[in-house]
């Protein structure tokens, strides 16, 4: 027999939300050393980093940014649907998932093309590529987990409504966080000194 520690659904939702924010703080600190490594490497070898950035596929990267940000929109609409019980939750979740999958597909194709180019890199430019693969790879891993969460929400969509929607809200927070991480990764890797290219 499990005793619920909460006295009300409101208390439970507030706890879940605070818990997700605390978890997202740990995620910031988890990505943190990689950001620090990037700053360290870019200060030490700015030219190599710029060279590395010029090898990135900027069209695909920009496309992916647009896709991911749209998925945040659909996710937010899904959260609102859950809150108001409007019935479009499943649609929004499906759209979010499709956009997320597309993002991963584009990323995968980029990795495929880059793997060959990277094999010839060395020195500081190799460091750039390592950071690129590590950070976007970690990001993609988080997105995959997010897709799993969305799938779970989709399966239980009927149970959410005005009275109970904390899981959708909390998942929305997670999805937006993953999006925000990408908003930093995109310029860091794709946009170095592009204006002069």
């Amino acid at each position: 027999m499990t005793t619920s520690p909460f006295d009300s659904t409101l208390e439970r939702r507030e706890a879940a939300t605070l818990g997700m924010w605390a978890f997202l703080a740990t995620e910031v600190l988890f990505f943190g050393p990689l950001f620090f490594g990037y700053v360290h490497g870019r200060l030490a070898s700015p030219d190599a980093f710029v060279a590395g950035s010029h090898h990135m596929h900027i069209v695909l990267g920009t496309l992916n940014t647009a896709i991911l940000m749209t998925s945040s929109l659909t996710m937010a609409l899904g959260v609102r649907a859950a809150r108001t019980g409007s019935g479009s939750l499943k649609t929004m979740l499906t759209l979010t998932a499709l956009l997320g999958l597309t993002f991963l597909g584009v990323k995968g194709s980029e990795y495929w093309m880059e793997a060959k180019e990277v094999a010839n890199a060395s020195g500081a430019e190799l460091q750039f590529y390592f950071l690129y693969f590590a950070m976007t790879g970690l990001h993609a891993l988080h997105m995959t987990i997010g897709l799993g969460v969305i799938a779970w929400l989709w399966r239980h969509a009927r149970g959410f409504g005005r009275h109970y929607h904390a899981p959708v809200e909390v998942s929305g927070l997670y999805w937006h966080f993953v999006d925000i991480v990408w908003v930093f990764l995109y310029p860091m890797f794709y946009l170095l000194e592009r204006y002069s290219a």
Partner: protein
Amino acid sequence: MSTPSPNGWGYLGEGYTLRSWLTTHDHKRIAILYMVAITAFFFLGGAAAALMRLELATPAGDVVSATTYNKLFTIHGVIMVWFFLIPSIPSVLGNFLVPLMIGARDMAFPRLNLASWYFYVVGGLFTLGALVAGGVDTGWTFYTPYSTRFSDTNVLLVLVGVFIVGFSSILTGLNIVVTVHKLRAPGLTWFRLPLFIWANYATSLILLLATPVLAMTLTLVALERLFKVGIFDPALGGDPLLFQHLFWFYSHPAVYIMILPAMGVASEIIPCFARRTVFGYRFMAYAILGIASIGFLVWGHHMFVSGQSMYAGMVFSLLSFLVAIPSAIKVFNWTATLYKGSIYFSAPMLYALGFVGLFTIGGLTGLFLASLALDVHLTDTYFVIAHFHYIMVGGSVMAYLGAIHFWWPKISGRMYPETMGRIAALTIFFGFNLTFFPQYLLGWLGMPRRYHEYPPELQVLNLFSSAGAAVLAIGYLLPLLYLGWSLFFGRRAPDNPWQATGLEWQTSSPPPQHNFEQQPRVERGPYDYQPVR
């Protein structure tokens, strides 16, 4: 006021099968699962230390080989830091007491709580696996490039084990933070919280924010070892100091994870056995927050001779002096709490007073290490070893034992034998000082750490230290024996054997599964003691 549970054993009586324990969501049972696990690891880490002190009784390296010694101090550090000290008070006593002390039925996320224990166990299994596979010889600090390119021992297994146990830390911290924010009983405002809660809350903030940095740093070491990327290895274009910065950014706050809960324990025990309120409650609470926050800014004091810039050293030195101030406040306030009290020298009180004394010595020696010019000579010597053992063992372990004794009636429903408790406390206090005080002298004389052999002139001090270790070992075995004995033969405990304040004492010993028959309302501050003649 409380009604005993049906069979009189509260949460302990809700199921006797192994399965009921391994699938529990009850924070009190999870606390016990942790207690069993960390006790096992404590004695394993202690065995490694015993072998080390045996080797160091004589100057020659004649008991174990150099490689074996290197593996011993590595596994001693890894086990004691990550599998004993960090989880000890938060995951055992924090898990048990936080909901009780705030009048809640359980933690905010009971299933995550159980998951955190399983993360601990799996992490522990990987680490034990590394041990069985032949050990690791990098030191618990994994400095590069030795750990990434030169060591041919089972480094990856240990890295995985520590990475996984990090999740245990994070989930415990998450649970405590959300629980304290959201589940306090009506009337229990922040400044009516017991200092034990403040301490574990601040610790949990550190657990949340520091542990992920360790996780990523260890991942990078593993990637470097596997794929020769060139992050930390200069031969591949990397920077060994980058590793040190990342590692110590976690590992310094980690030592505050180890000491803050201990300070919280002292603030519960001393008022109770002095029968008066703690002196300077607000300053104590702010000091806890001060230690936690400034503690994130001092990591470079581990790197004064590492090759980092002299100016960076000065910044870190100044901040390290600053973090000593809130700790000093706490020592003064504990001392002042004895003034005009009515003092009982029970076993928990002996542990708590021993904690204050030994923490004071350890903390004062921290000033030597914070002083740049002195640290040049003292770093990487036995002076540092003595310093951190005074704080982590003389401090945290004594506080942990004091806490176990103080709350044993509540946890087990039994009283431990008081005379044995006092004997053990005094044995440990004596054994501890005999073991570690000579190490200050050894460090000042210039004996480096991680040495299994040393110049013969230093034997007398080393012999004292090894003798002390034998006494200390006996001291630690005593509670294991008589606490175990008390589970079967100890006197049945009343609800509040110490006449202590605190909501946990307002329910039965042991508490029912849902903690309180009726949710408490709080109208007063904590430590509402009146000294009696």
